[in-house]
């Protein structure tokens, strides 16, 4: 922690000098670690593509092309992903060279910036979608809200929070990720192309789920923000 504050201090100094030269006092009030982060996010760094290209101006992602949203994801989670993508333990040919090109300081800065972006959905409206008694035929809703404890599979929402909004720095939001993206993550956990996550929690659970279950929860969470919006509108 102390060392990261020192780094931020140095960055702050440099950014401040640059800001004063180029933009006058406007930048002085802004958080300068975020300034560096914003710059990396929107312009890239060290010759690699900027995050904004695929993840959108507000970090909202591009679900149709399976690029996940980043806004609202835990900072510890995002940093761990950049690390894993860079060193190849999470396999992704697009992200690998980008993550690998960023220094640890740059990763921290960009993650800090992403942390300032608004969530792409309404957390309370999503949480209201949680159901203690989902439709018996909706396997995805059932797994998401109740789990399959006969196979030691907890409800997704027991860690990712009601409505799949995520909680804290380590448990990411899953609502509104595209179906293909979610399914791909399960495939990667099962075949070892993505680290199992803190305390091996997600990797172990993924291996207990079959393809039909994976498909069902992916469908459920991909459609959840839309369901929440419709429910809000109906009120």
């Amino acid at each position, binding site marked *: 922690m102390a060392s990261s504050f020192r780094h931020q201090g140095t960055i702050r100094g440099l950014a401040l000098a640059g800001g004063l030269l180029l933009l006058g006092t406007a930048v002085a009030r802004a958080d300068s670690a975020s300034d560096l982060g914003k710059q990396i996010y929107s312009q890239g760094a060290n010759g690699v593509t900027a995050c904004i290209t695929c993840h959108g101006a507000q970090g909202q992602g591009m679900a149709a092309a399976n690029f996940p949203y980043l806004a609202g994801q835990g900072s510890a989670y995002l940093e761990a992903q950049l690390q894993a993508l860079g060193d190849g333990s999470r396999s992704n040919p697009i992200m690998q060279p980008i993550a690998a090109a960023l220094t640890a300081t740059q990763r921290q800065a960009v993650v800090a910036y992403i942390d300032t972006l608004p969530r792409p959905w309404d957390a*309370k409206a999503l949480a209201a979608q949680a159901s203690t008694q989902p439709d018996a035929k909706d396997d995805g809703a059932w797994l998401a809200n109740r789990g399959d404890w006969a196979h030691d599979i907890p409800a997704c929402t027991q860690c990712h929070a009601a409505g799949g909004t995520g909680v804290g720095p380590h448990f990411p939001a899953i609502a509104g990720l595209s179906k293909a993206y979610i399914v791909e993550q399960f495939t990667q956990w099962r075949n070892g192309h993505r680290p199992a996550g803190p305390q091996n929690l997600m990797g172990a659970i993924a291996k207990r789920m079959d393809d039909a279950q994976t498909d069902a929860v992916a469908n459920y969470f991909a459609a959840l923000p839309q369901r929440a919006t419709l429910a809000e509108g109906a009120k």
Partner: protein
Amino acid sequence: MSQMSVSTNLAIGALLLGLATAQAAEPAAPAPSFTPPPAQAIPDGPFGDAVRLGQNIFLNPRKFAGQYVGNSMNCASCHLDAGRKADSAPMWAAYVLYPAYRSKNGHVNTLAERLQGCFIYSMNGKMPPADGKTIMALESYMFWMAKGAPTGVKLAGQGFPDLKEPAETPDYLRGQKVFTQHCALCHGADGAGQHDATGRAVFPALWGDDSYNWGAGMHSVKTAAAFIHANMPLSQGGTLSEQEAWDVAYFIDGNERPQDPRYAGDLQATIKAHHGGKYDLYGKTVNGVTLGERSTPSSSQSAAKP
């Protein structure tokens, strides 16, 4: 408890009472197993509605029985899978054991009184009336879940599986290490849990003002160790060693929590009447704090005050 006391009981039972040794003879005759009806199979109609309300209360008591709840825990925080999971004190196994004599209060308790205790102690809340909707719904949920189970019998999976006495006396610092490594990710380094956008606990508080109080069953290191060993970390039950479970339970229950609602201003009197034993840390000094001495009043106590 120890193998010794079981076999002693068995011998005395056999000598003195002949066949009346059902409880002591339990290790020889395995407890019958039972499977509750599928969770999706709650019937339609007025009885089904009561069952569903009970299930709703069980999974989200703040929303469905908020006036009786004083923390952000859920019944399902400790009774996993909505009270269905074996070895996680399942409701189908509890249902068939009441009415029962309880040493906790020295008389025969109906199921309603037992459930009231959950609200006062574990939920650090207030007592719902025995003949009111909340207790009626919870009893309906339990009754439905126990359909076809034999009554008066300890079923396989009831309660939390007893652990052997620990090889080493449970230790606060060892427990803290286990906590940091295996528990803090979800429950937080300060034990305060983590909450969603609506304030509902995703991961419940394990100590502090938002947790179970000093009268709850889980304040016993033995009970907490048994629960933890069988069920924690979530989806990884059985992965901690028994010693780790004892140590981390000691650490968790060695922290302050809301006062025992039976406390009336005299710690020693409360200890004498309701506490004691080596695995009850209430009133003991742990990590420099005499537990119970300066606890926040329980919510039933603060409600009683003008």
